[in-house]
Every structure is written in structure tokens, then in C-alpha cells.
């Protein structure tokens, strides 16, 4: 079991609001880690710390360390663009660019300097296949990324992330805008993807966390209350607060 990401006593502030309190956790490579908790508990904030997405928000501050493969991603010399290539992100609402399906997937590799058409075609096909979308769109790669269904758009966004060959894929409620069938496709896809990637998912759907993840962390009021094997968290959590949350008694 290799540790891909290690958070060490992470504190995070939105100006004066102390949003994450002393988070320490190791995220294993080639596993799916689910982060659960009520709204405002800090789970999405923590997810966004993992590829420095919070940097763009003014007056935010992080203390502690987040190591990716042993390197502190908050060191000043770190190239944030390169970091986000390694640690890709899929958002709640599918957000394809207003470009063709092909160009959506080719966008990242192009930005990184790849202009060889044959190579780009190879990357697009490989990425769409990995995102389980190839068979549905292979004959319409010129079609707008916005003209396909919501579930397909989300898989297109996943393909776009995979095109730059990340190590880690962060998913922030990736299925909340999708219907149950599209949701199941994404969940199945995640199981395939974890063979090659490390996945961290924030979800409000506890059944989903229980179904897809290997490990689960429960956040409450900015603290990581409990982290452990998903089998344990959902059957016999150690902390009363976790129990109350997953059995719906929280509040």
C-alpha cells in the first residue's frame, strides 16, 4: 500500500474562518477515498486543498503540510499548473468547454505543448475509452461537448482530466447533477480508473460512498472525526458522531 497523498496537521482559513482544523490523513494510491459530512463541514475545502484550487480564493491561508508522493505541494517553488496536471479535478456540474468533443479532450495536451495531430488523436481515443465514452461518441468527435447528455458531459470532463495523465483524480460530487443510470456509469468507471489512478471523491450520497470507496473520512465542523475502511465506517463506526450522521440522526 503506497501513500499517494499525506496531509499533516492541515489548518485552513477563509480569512478569519477556521475551516479545517488539524487534518492529518494518508490517502493510498490506487484506492478510492470518499469524504463525507454535512454541508459546510470542510470536505470540499479539504479536497480543493489537494490541488491548491483554494489559492484562487482571496484571503485564504493554509498551515501544515500536504505531501504528494512525499513532496510538499505548498512549497513556493511548486509549479501549480504542473501540480494540477498531476492532480486533476472533476466538478459537480459537468463543465465541458464550448468546443468539439475532440477539442475538449485535446485541450490539456495542447496546452502542455502537444501539437502532433496523430498523437492527439491517440490521446483523445485513449482518454475517451478510459472514461467509458468512446463507443458512444467515436463517430461524432466534431460535435459540441455541450450537445451530449449530462452523464456523457461528465464522462467527457473525466476524459479531459485523464488526457493529461494525472496521478490523482479529485471528484467534487461528480454525480449530483446526474440521473441514476448516468450515476451508475460513473461509479463503474471509478472502479476501472482506480487501477491506474488514485481517486478522492466528495459526496453527499452516503450510499454512493459506501458503494464505491475503499476508505471513508467523515468531516464535521472542520474536523476529520473518523477515517477508516469504508466497510467499518458504514457498519460499525467508532465515533458516536459518525454513527449519528450515517444513520441520519445528525442535526
Amino acid at each position, binding site marked *: 500500500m503506497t501513500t499517494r497523498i499525506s496531509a499533516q496537521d492541515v489548518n485552513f482559513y477563509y480569512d478569519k474562518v477556521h475551516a479545517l482544523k488539524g487534518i492529518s490523513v494518508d490517502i493510498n494510491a490506487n484506492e478510492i477515498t470518499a469524504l463525507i459530512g454535512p454541508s459546510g463541514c470542510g470536505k470540499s475545502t479539504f479536497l480543493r486543498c489537494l490541488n491548491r484550487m483554494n489559492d484562487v480564493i482571496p484571503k485564504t491561508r493554509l498551515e501544515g503540510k500536504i505531501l504528494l508522493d512525499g513532496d510538499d505541494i505548498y512549497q513556493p517553488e511548486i509549479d501549480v499548473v504542473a501540480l494540477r496536471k498531476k492532480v486533476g479535478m472533476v466538478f459537480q456540474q459537468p463543465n465541458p468547454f464550448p468546443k468539439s468533443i475532440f477539442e475538449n479532450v485535446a485541450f490539456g495536451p495542447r496546452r502542455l505543448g502537444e501539437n502532433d495531430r496523430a498523437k492527439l488523436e491517440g490521446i483523445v481515443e485513449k482518454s475517451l475509452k478510459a472514461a467509458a465514452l468512446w463507443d458512444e461518441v467515436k463517430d461524432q468527435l466534431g460535435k459540441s461537448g455541450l450537445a451530449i447528455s449530462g452523464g456523457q458531459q461528465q464522462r467527457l470532463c473525466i476524459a479531459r482530466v485523464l488526457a493529461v495523465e494525472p496521478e490523482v483524480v479529485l471528484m467534487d460530487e461528480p454525480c449530483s447533477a446526474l440521473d441514476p443510470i448516468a450515476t451508475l456509469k460513473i461509479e463503474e468507471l471509478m472502479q476501472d480508473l482506480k487501477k491506474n489512478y488514485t481517486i478522492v471523491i466528495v459526496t453527499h450520497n*452516503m450510499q454512493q460512498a*459506501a458503494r464505491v470507496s475503499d476508505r471513508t473520512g467523515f468531516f464535521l465542523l472542520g474536523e476529520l472525526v473518523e477515517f477508516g475502511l469504508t466497510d467499518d465506517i458504514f*457498519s460499525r463506526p467508532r465515533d458516536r458522531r459518525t454513527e449519528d450522521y*450515517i444513520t441520519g440522526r*445528525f442535526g
Partner: protein
Amino acid sequence: MARESFARQLRGLQDEVIVLGSMVEKAIARSVEALQKRDFELADLVVKNDEKINQKRFQIEEECVMLITKQQPMASDLRVILSVLSVITDLERMGDYASGIAEITLILQHDPPLEPPAEFPRMAEIGIQMLSDSLKAFVARDAEAAYRIGVRDDEIDALYHKVMQQCLAYITEDPRTAATATRLIWVGHNLERIGDRVTNICERVIFTVTGKMEEIWGTHPSAEASR
């Protein structure tokens, strides 16, 4: 507390288990009373009432399935429902044992009378007390009590051993009693099995509380101390 209606349904489910438990306790008590007093009407009633026990069990099972389907329970809530499913199976089987004793009583009315072993009422009494205590422990989520109740099965086993000896003595003294004495051994066997089933219930209480599935004959201090 959120999910108040679900919490209410869970409590309702447990109430139903208690009702089923009382039906079984009554059946056990009546079956042994009918045997001791050669009260064939009472024995007949026990046999007939077993159908009600079976129906009650299926009704509770259906409620469990509906709760799982509609509420998607997790953690301790799920364990309660899974335990109920297991406990009602044990209760239904205990009902069968009582019904079996009553059926033997009805058969015995055609046999030459043979004094039933004096241990039967005591075995039934311990079994009923254990059953009642185990269901109380379930409702109270008292794993410690469950360990203590489970080990009392030893008492029933010891009484069963005496029953065996007495019935074998009947047969040795007068081989013509063999058929009746064998039936009495079956009564003892049924009462002994009731103790085993209560032990199963106690194990479910422990599972409900701790999430761990374990045999009651572990190394737990409460079990050891009581032995």
C-alpha cells in the same frame, strides 16, 4: 432527532419481536404443562397456535424487508434489523419445539402412562426465563447481560442429561416402555434446543451492540465468570 418516523418504526419492530417472544414463551409453558397434566386439549391448542406464531414471524420479516428497502438503514440501525431477522427465525423454531412437545403429548395419550421426568418443568422454566431476559437485553442493547444469559444454557444441558438417564433407565427396567421413553427423550431434546436458540439470540444482542459476530463461548469475562 432527525428521521423520527424511522426511529418510531424501528421501535415498533422491536415491540413486535417482544409480542412474538411472549407467544413463544406461552407455547413452551403450555406444552410442558399439557404433558405433565396429560391435558390433551391444551396440547391441541399449542399445536394450533403454532400457525399464529409462524404468521407473526412472516409479518415481522416483511416489515424488516420494507424498512431495508425504503429506509436504507446503516450501521447500528441495519444491525438491529438484521438481528431482528435472525431472532424471529430462532423464535419461530422455538415455537416449533413447543408444538413438537404438544404433538408428542397427543401421541402419548394412546401409550401406557409413563411418569415424565421431573426435570421438564424446570427446563422449561429456565428456557422461558432465558428467552425473556434475552429479549430484554436486546431492547436494552445490553451485551453484558447477553453474555450472562447465554451461559445459563449449561443448566438446561445438565437437566437434559438427567432426563436421558431416567428414560434409559425406564427402557432398561422394562423394554416395553421403549417407544414412550424415546418420545420423552424427544421432549427433553426439544427443551434443550430451546436453550441453544436463546444462546443464538444472545449472540445477536452482542452483534447489535458491538457489530461483532462471535460465539458466546468466548473468553469474555462475563461469560467466564458465570460459568
